[in-house]
């Protein structure tokens, strides 16, 4: 187990470094000049050269990349002499746009994106598993078909359409909820939930179908197993049979998708955040793209990759918890 974990963590670091390298290449090699972006519109050639040196862009590419990497682990000093700036431990550089450390910008926005992702995940698991299990228990009935087609239809709606319709219906016409603005969970839990309810719903509708289909398939399979008959024969209540014996064995594939989905969402839902005006990482990313703020774009990409890789690792470890046959 420990050995497995060490191996996986090493692989994880490797993947992250590879992703950092690819991202770095794309942004620093493709025709766009970060120095010009950092320097602004009224920039003299001398000043541009100065900025280039300050940002370390005059160094060979591999040096720049190594500096960037070591900055993440140990922090580094940007520039020299009187302009030197100490960039502390998880140093991802400074935003060209507002000169704030990228790490602080990301951590500032993370609670919003994380709230959005976790809330939506709870909702889509409830919707998806609920629909899937119900459909499986009523296999081949009208309920089953209606649920499955409904799930696919909901997932086929583009999220920007669902979001706009939700805003129109619930906020503009019915006036049931305020227009979303982020409230911190610690200060105002009720405001937090009511403001995020619509974005959660929009995302959940998109994701739930996959879970409905998957859980329906696994449930149908599991409920035909002999151990279900045994459980029933023991006189176990049907509810316990379904949840503890049926659902649990079908959880492995669902967990795999869940890890990927949640990991991917944690670093921001670009479209949903923009439509609902939530100040999360997705919007930070989009804004940074528009203004060619490369350190921020690079930071968001790395953070997103980090979440995906970690989520996959956690999922693999959870397999052993869910399925006693799995050992590492």
């Amino acid at each position, binding site marked *: 187990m420990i050995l497995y974990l060490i191996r996986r963590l090493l692989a994880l670091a490797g*993947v992250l470094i590879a992703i950092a390298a690819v991202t770095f290449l794309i942004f620093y090699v493709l025709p766009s000049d970060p120095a010009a972006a950092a320097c602004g519109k009224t920039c003299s050639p001398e000043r541009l050269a100065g900025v280039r040196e300050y940002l370390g862009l005059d160094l060979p590419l591999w040096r720049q990349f190594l500096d960037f990497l070591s900055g993440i682990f140990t922090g580094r000093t940007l520039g020299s002499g009187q302009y030197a700036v100490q960039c502390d431990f998880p140093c991802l550089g400074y935003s060209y746009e507002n000169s704030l450390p990228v790490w602080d910008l990301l951590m500032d926005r993370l609670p919003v994106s994380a709230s959005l992702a976790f809330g939506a995940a709870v909702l889509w698991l409830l919707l998806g598993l609920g629909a899937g299990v119900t459909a499986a228990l009523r296999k081949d009935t009208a309920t089953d078909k209606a649920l499955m087609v409904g799930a696919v239809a909901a997932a*086929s709606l*583009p999220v920007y359409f669902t979001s706009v319709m939700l805003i129109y219906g619930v906020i503009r016409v019915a006036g049931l909820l305020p227009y979303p603005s982020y409230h911190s969970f610690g200060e105002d839990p009720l405001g937090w939930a009511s403001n995020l309810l619509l974005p959660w719903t929009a995302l959940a509708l998109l994701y739930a179908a996959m879970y409905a289909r998957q859980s329906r398939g696994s449930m149908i399979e599991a409920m035909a197993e002999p151990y279900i008959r045994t459980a029933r024969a023991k006189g176990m209540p049907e509810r316990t049979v379904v949840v503890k014996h049926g659902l649990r064995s079908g959880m492995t594939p669902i967990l795999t*998708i869940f890890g990927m989905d949640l990991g991917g969402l944690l670093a921001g839902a*670009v479209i949903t955040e923009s439509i609902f005006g939530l100040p999360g990482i997705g919007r930070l990313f989009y804004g940074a*793209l528009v203004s060619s703020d490369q350190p921020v*774009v690079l930071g968001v990409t790395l953070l997103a*990759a980090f979440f*995906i890789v970690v989520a*996959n690792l956690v999922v693999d470890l959870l397999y052993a918890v869910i399925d006693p046959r799995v050992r590492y």
Partner: protein
Amino acid sequence: MTTTAPGAGGQTPPAPVPGGAPAPEAAGAAPAAAATGAGPWQLARRELRRRPAVRVSACVVLLFVLMAVTAPWLGALGGWTPGEFDKTAIDPYLGGQPLGSLGGISPAHWLGVEPVTGRDLFSRVVNGAQVSLLIAFAATAIVVITGTAAGTAAGYFGGRTDAVLSRLMDLTMSFPSLIFMIAMLSVAKDVNRIVLMTAVIGLFGWPGVARVVRGQTLSLKHREYVDAARVGGSGAWRILTRDILPGVSGPVIAYTTLLIPGMISTEAALSYLGVGVRPPTPSWGQMIAESVAYYETDPMYFVIPSVFLFLAVLAFTLLGDALRDILDPRGGRT
């Protein structure tokens, strides 16, 4: 994973007719006679015909494909080109609102017009279908070809080839793909947007196909008929193309059909975000992005491209679901 799907080549050589190549005896022959000795593809086709949902979604898919292929002519039927302004269809005193009800739907403009410019929505939606489906299909082709090649190679050769390819799959799957696509598309400046989008979208999809194909290949490569071919002196290339490929084609076709709606959505999302197809060229996502601001004043403008996008994605998903149930009842799920 030992799947013996109807399409997985359970029996040996009388090999399935690849793709949709019309097998005349299957299409026209008396069903009673075929029932006993039907090949996997015939069985699949018969099963597909039995389901009404499949028939409807197949028709919708066909309509969309026809619409995309004939877009320049079909669009011209309405009498307008996608970029043509019609100042007579809008009300300059009402901020360029379309004249008439329902977003200006009239005999002259079958689906109404865009506010402000008065461009014909029918022509734009039809031409947008061409752009959206072209990108989706081309990206799917890249994904399927790369994925199948990588998957068969990894599964058949095993060893170091498998190790390298499998690591590459893991790595590609760890990329935050949407964020990456947006970033790549926004950095690239003067290139053909359609080609670029196809390449970028195609880049991240192949590991899914490769995994399915790899698993299938692993289960096929030690079947007797493959061994027989090997003993008979067939080279690796011949075995891969003649014996393995027909065997993996069932799951691959099912997976491919399910990839297309995802590709359509991705293209639309990227264009919606403004990093996809650039304005004079219409695409559904970009039309929706432009119309969001008008959803209250001119709802039809917003609803029409959304409905087209929705129907296309839904029809492809339903068709793909059915194909997967039939061609690959157990495998193919990550």
